[in-house]
């Protein structure tokens, strides 16, 4: 075994046994408990009866046996109050074997981090909601957004995400209705943008424009925009029938609040915005195109981008890069 000297193996085994409270069950293909041992009572498995069906004795196994696959691993399973087990199951020709180890401490560590992540995610949503609805934009600009309502120069990253699968209009079924598709697309994309610290600026036709760098963050705006873009690409890949084309630009823009119609809206003016909107016109499905100022700030992430030229652009135009999945 791994060519380790005997004392080392013994020592490692003793640590596992000491800290993890292993227990095991051996169960026939017919569901009869053949053997058990170790710290079963720790997992609420006291009063086990040999040579009887496991169905009434070990309820977490309901539906799982006999094992359909050679092995199964479940990292965190709370089967008794206050104890979380890590469970390995594997199939032998005659019987199935189940090993339980205590993973309560390991679980607690994960919960700590996961709780923070989820809390923050919910908080962001709340923020975005109040920005969009109830809160007066002037107040929002001062308290939540890191901008002057009267206008200021700021370096922002701009992400334009186009939904490419809205073209065909088929009024027969609502699922093929482009509006429904765009709606589904927006509800997939919006939380990803918010999660990465962006705000949704507006939607134009089948594209959504988001800006990064207006909300305070410890990360620089282009990195946030790229992180959001990559997650959007992945999410669209996961969802059948939805394709997207993405553009990210970075640079100094003028931001402020402008009276439009009956309300004030966030307004972003400048070359990076024009460039992003222009590139978006010709961008193709499943691509992410970025400009040089964005590229220059990406550090190691630069490795995932290759220089590209888009048809219809003059040779003198500033260089562009496109994302290549590694």
């Amino acid at each position, binding site marked *: 075994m791994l060519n380790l000297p005997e004392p080392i193996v013994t020592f490692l085994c003793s640590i596992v046994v000491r800290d993890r409270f292993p227990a095991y069950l051996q169960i026939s293909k017919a569901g009869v408990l053949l053997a058990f041992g170790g710290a079963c009572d720790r997992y609420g498995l006291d009063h086990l009866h040999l040579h009887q069906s496991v*169905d009434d004795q070990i309820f977490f196994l309901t*539906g799982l046996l006999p094992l359909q696959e050679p092995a199964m691993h479940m990292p*965190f*399973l709370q089967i008794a109050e206050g104890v979380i087990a890590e469970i390995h199951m594997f199939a032998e020709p005659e019987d199935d074997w189940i090993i339980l180890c205590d993973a309560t401490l390991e679980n607690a560590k994960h919960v700590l981090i996961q709780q923070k992540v989820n809390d923050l995610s919910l908080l962001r949503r709340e923020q975005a909601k109040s920005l969009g609805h109830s809160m007066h934009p002037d107040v929002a600009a001062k308290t939540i957004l890191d901008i002057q309502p009267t206008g200021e120069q700021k370096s922002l990253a701009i992400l334009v995400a186009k939904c490419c699968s809205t073209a065909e209009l088929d009024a027969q079924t609502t699922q093929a209705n482009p509006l429904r598709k765009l709606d589904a697309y927006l*509800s997939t994309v919006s939380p990803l943008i918010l999660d990465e610290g962006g705000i949704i600026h507006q939607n134009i036709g089948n594209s959504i424009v988001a800006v990064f760098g207006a909300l305070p963050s410890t990360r620089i705006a282009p990195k946030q925009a790229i992180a959001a873009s990559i997650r959007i690409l992945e999410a669209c890949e996961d969802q059948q029938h939805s394709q997207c084309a993405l553009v990210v630009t970075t640079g100094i823009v003028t931001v402020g609040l402008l009276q439009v119609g009956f309300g004030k809206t966030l307004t972003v003016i400048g070359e990076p915005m024009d460039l992003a909107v222009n590139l978006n016109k010709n961008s193709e499905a499943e691509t992410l195109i970025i400009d040089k100022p964005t590229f220059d700030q990406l550090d190691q992430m630069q490795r995932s981008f290759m220089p590209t030229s888009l048809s219809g652009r003059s040779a003198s135009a500033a260089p562009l890069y496109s994302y290549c999945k590694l």
Partner: protein
Amino acid sequence: MLQKKICMVGAFATGKTSLVARYVQGIYSDKYQTTVGVKIDKKNISVSGQDLNLILWDIHGEDEFQKIRMSYLRGSAAYILVVDGTRRDTLGTVFQLQSKVEDTIGKVPFITMFNKYDLSQDWEIGEEDLEELTQRQWLYCMGSARTGLGVEECFIKLAQMML
């Protein structure tokens, strides 16, 4: 006694843990405690004169860092897709999850629960969303783990579909 495994599936913080706690223990808390992994509970019920032992698998929610392990769903006789009615994107999440679940365990009965119905002022689910469910021939119900509204009915309806 007939024993059936039922999984709770959905985005994080939609109320999966709360629904099980409400149904099994009759308790509710506003404090959010995230689930990592699975918590298993039992509930004995009697549906249409048949005694049933429900083994409820409360699975952690899907988010950026925790993708749901499909192996947790193995052996499920049915599942509940939980949507937070005040977060419309959690409906999109169950659309995605449902097809993954079906790929893993095949066609078994399921029901969609729109939870947090007590927060009607923040409700984000519209008529057209429900229409889409009808088109997909998905059964759904509205409820609230907080008030208890519709919770028991949802589990019973699902149990009836399994018999």
